[in-house]
């Protein structure tokens, strides 16, 4: 397949079922709400090494936040609700509670709930109080700039998707990066998805396993341009660099929509920037429950 002189591989991205939760973080200004959200999302690129994959999914308008202040939603993806609870408590406790003027609310509507406040609220040392409004309970924790408000619970789902991906191959490293930046910017507009790696882009795609016993993953040598002659390469002779965009989503449709947006942007921006090919990472189709065939996602 070929779109605007960019070759689209007849392959698929293989993604996995994951658990997901989220919180809405508000503050006195968009700047500080974003700051708390970014801080909470830090060191949240891969569930294997970080415990959770985290990112800002969308900005929430003042009309839609519980306290009428500007907000951002952070989504967290992990192996299980129990694993996410630990990550949630630590990240909210260290990164949101500490951020000036912040408040933290339920970010995912779901039947199953995580005890969002169980941990951070005890920072109140007995001075914390709760206010139940309708079916929602809010904790008020006294802090040095007033009160930190945190909702009692947040929703968690177990049918989320992690690991949707696009491999973008180019002949110019700067042009390739600029193209991927444009794709990530467009994909960021898609709700219910995050791209957890730095700026949404991965330069160190991995394969399962390693020659070293203690390493669960190692460099994806088939897509390393400098190993083209030394390994069983998946790259053509003109490929200079490969970048990957990894997508996690609350639903499979959200991941597919995001990948579709990414392919559209890459095929529009990429031709003049040296992008020659789009591929996707998979493990033969036997490990992940979700397969996203690129031919089904063409613009």
């Amino acid at each position: 397949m070929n779109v605007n002189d960019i070759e689209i591989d007849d392959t698929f991205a293989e993604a996995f079922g994951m658990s997901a939760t989220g919180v809405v973080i508000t503050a006195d200004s968009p700047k500080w709400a974003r700051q708390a959200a970014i801080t909470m999302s830090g060191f949240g690129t891969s569930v294997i090494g970080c415990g959770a994959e985290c990112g800002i999914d969308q900005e929430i308008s003042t009309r839609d936040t519980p306290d009428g202040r500007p907000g951002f939603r952070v989504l967290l993806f992990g192996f299980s609700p129990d694993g996410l609870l630990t990550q949630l408590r630590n990240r909210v406790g260290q990164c949101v509670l500490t951020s000036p003027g912040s408040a933290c609310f339920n970010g995912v509507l779901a039947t199953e709930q995580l005890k969002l406040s169980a941990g951070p609220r005890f920072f109140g040392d007995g001075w914390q109080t709760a206010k139940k409004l309708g079916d929602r309970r809010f904790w008020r924790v006294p802090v040095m700039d007033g009160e930190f408000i945190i909702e009692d619970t947040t929703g968690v789902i177990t049918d989320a998707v992690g690991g949707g991906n696009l491999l973008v191959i180019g002949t110019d490293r700067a042009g390739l990066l600029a193209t991927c930046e444009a794709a990530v910017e467009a994909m960021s507009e898609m709700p219910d998805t995050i791209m957890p790696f730095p700026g949404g882009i991965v330069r160190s795609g991995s394969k399962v396993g390693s020659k070293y016993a203690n390493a669960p993953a190692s460099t994806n040598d088939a897509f390393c341009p400098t190993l083209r002659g030394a390994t069983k390469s998946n790259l053509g002779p003109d490929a200079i660099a490969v970048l990957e965009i990894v997508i996690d989503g609350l639903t499979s449709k959200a991941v597919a929509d995001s990948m579709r947006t990414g392919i559209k942007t890459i095929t529009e921006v990429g031709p003049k920037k040296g992008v020659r090919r789009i591929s996707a990472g998979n493990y033969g189709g036997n490990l992940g429950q979700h397969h996203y065939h690129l031919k089904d996602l063409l613009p």
Partner: protein
Amino acid sequence: MSTLTLKLKSEPTERLDLSSLTPSALGGKTTDEIARLNLTSRAYTICVGDVFDIAGTPGDTIVFDGGSGRLDFIGANNEDGTLIVEGDVGAYAGQMMKSGRLEIRGNAGAFLASSLQEGLILVNGSAGDNIGAPRRGDRDGISGGNIVVKGDVGDLAGTRMRRGTIIAHGKIGAQAGARMMGGTIWGTHGFGQNPGVQMRRGLLIAPTMEHMLPTFLDCGFHDLGIVKIMNRYLQNTLHDLAPKLDVAKVHKYAGDMASLGKGEIFLTG
């Protein structure tokens, strides 16, 4: 949706217990069966048909066409549906209501919404003493739901309240929130004397009060997020019935220090 209309024939000669006249209790009954229901616990009977003209079909709404201060327990234990009273009601209206909506387009007597559990009670006029309070011998007051009184409210509103919201667009009488354990009482025209006596937790909001107990401590003026959250929740839940708080900061008092001391009074004036 179907409506059953009960038109009051004349002012009752004695107090009547209307707790059996709720949408869930009357569902499936014929008009004749409803007419034979007894409204008193005395040795003699006073039936629904003696007091009301019955029209319509039992369903999710009951309209009482005409009210009286002798009609007690209207909407008590209601589990669903809507009750509308075109006039006054007596004591214990909405007692232990579990869900639904009770709209009183007149005044309400004492112990309105006693131990309310959930749902909305709206009074277009004023309400008497002890709204939301438990009956004598019972332990807990309101445990959920919302009460909105467009007029004034009597003394001892919200006694032993645990959750839920009482809003009065008029003035609230003395000792509101006595022995309160949670929930919110909001009086847009102020409290009478000694609100929050012996309160353990909970929140009282008003622009002014006639006299504050010495066991409440001044915590200063603050811009509190919980006020914004309550504003938004009430706007979304009650719409035009919600109170509006436009001040940037509230004057917070903590008390009652003669009890647990985790209650709060926010003065907005």
